[in-house]
């Protein structure tokens, strides 16, 4: 039953991601990316990582993709078709490169003799939200307080940088 559910979710995820990279209209591509993120959240719930699933829905779908949809609507004229034709030879080159990458990585994966890859039952205990919260803010040896603070600083810097870059520079700013 779990296998069946996993195969369904995985094939939906691969199909939606394929649509997201190949649809000519960017608005449709972003909407299929939203669908693939929802399926990914379902996979996280199957892997017993509820907090990651929730933050996936809130951050990716609620934040990043909505932001991206706004930019698509701003720059392509309300989602109007803005297709630049790609030459068939370049498309074939892309398919060749990505397929050879996939083949090489798959060969590396399946030539690994580890038993861990085919174990059915997980060896780790379930992770609760309390664990994640305490680890994120603990100052102990295994705590994540320093990366957490650096990430918050990075978010602030990115916010200011985005405002500075996207500001209209018409060259007549008044000095007060």
């Amino acid at each position, binding site marked *: 039953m779990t296998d069946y559910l*996993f195969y369904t979710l995985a094939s939906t*995820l*691969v199909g939606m*991601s*394929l649509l*997201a*990279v*190949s649809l000519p209209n*960017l608005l449709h*591509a*972003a909407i299929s*990316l939203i669908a*693939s993120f929802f399926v*990914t959240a379902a*996979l*996280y719930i*199957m*892997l017993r990582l509820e*907090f*990651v699933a929730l*933050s996936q829905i809130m*951050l*990716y779908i609620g*934040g*990043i993709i909505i932001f*991206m949809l706004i*930019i698509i609507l*701003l*720059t*392509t004229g309300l989602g109007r078709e803005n297709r*630049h034709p790609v030459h068939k030879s*370049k*498309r074939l*080159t892309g398919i060749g*490169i*990505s397929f050879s990458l*996939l083949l090489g*990585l*798959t060969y590396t*994966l*399946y030539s690994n003799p580890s038993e861990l*890859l*085919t*174990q*059915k039952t*997980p*060896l*780790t*205990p379930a*992770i609760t939200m309390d664990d*994640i919260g305490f*680890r994120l803010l603990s100052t102990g040896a*295994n705590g994540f307080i320093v990366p957490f603070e650096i*990430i918050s600083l*990075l*978010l602030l810097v*990115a916010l200011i*940088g985005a*405002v500075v*870059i996207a500001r209209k520079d018409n060259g007549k700013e008044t000095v007060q």
Partner: protein
Amino acid sequence: MTLSHCIFLSLLLCAIGVYGVLTRRNLIGILLSVEVILNGANINFAAFAHFRAVDPVAGAIFPIFVMAVSACEMAVALAIIISMYRHKRRLDVYRLEELNG
């Protein structure tokens, strides 16, 4: 569902994202493809944290950091896209060749 299934799924997502990065001509399309690659990497972290890890909580925390860095990247990249759109009115990567030596 075993660990190798999850790793193969994330390999597929990585290959799909690389294909999108190589064939898209619009800058926003390239950003969408990069999101697909990051999604595959996150699935890998989560799968290893679920099946076998010395420290499973760290595996659950890492995707959150990836999401935060991806949000930063998206904000700056979209600001660059807006200012580029204001200058050129096109987002076709074939036309962005000022640095072409």
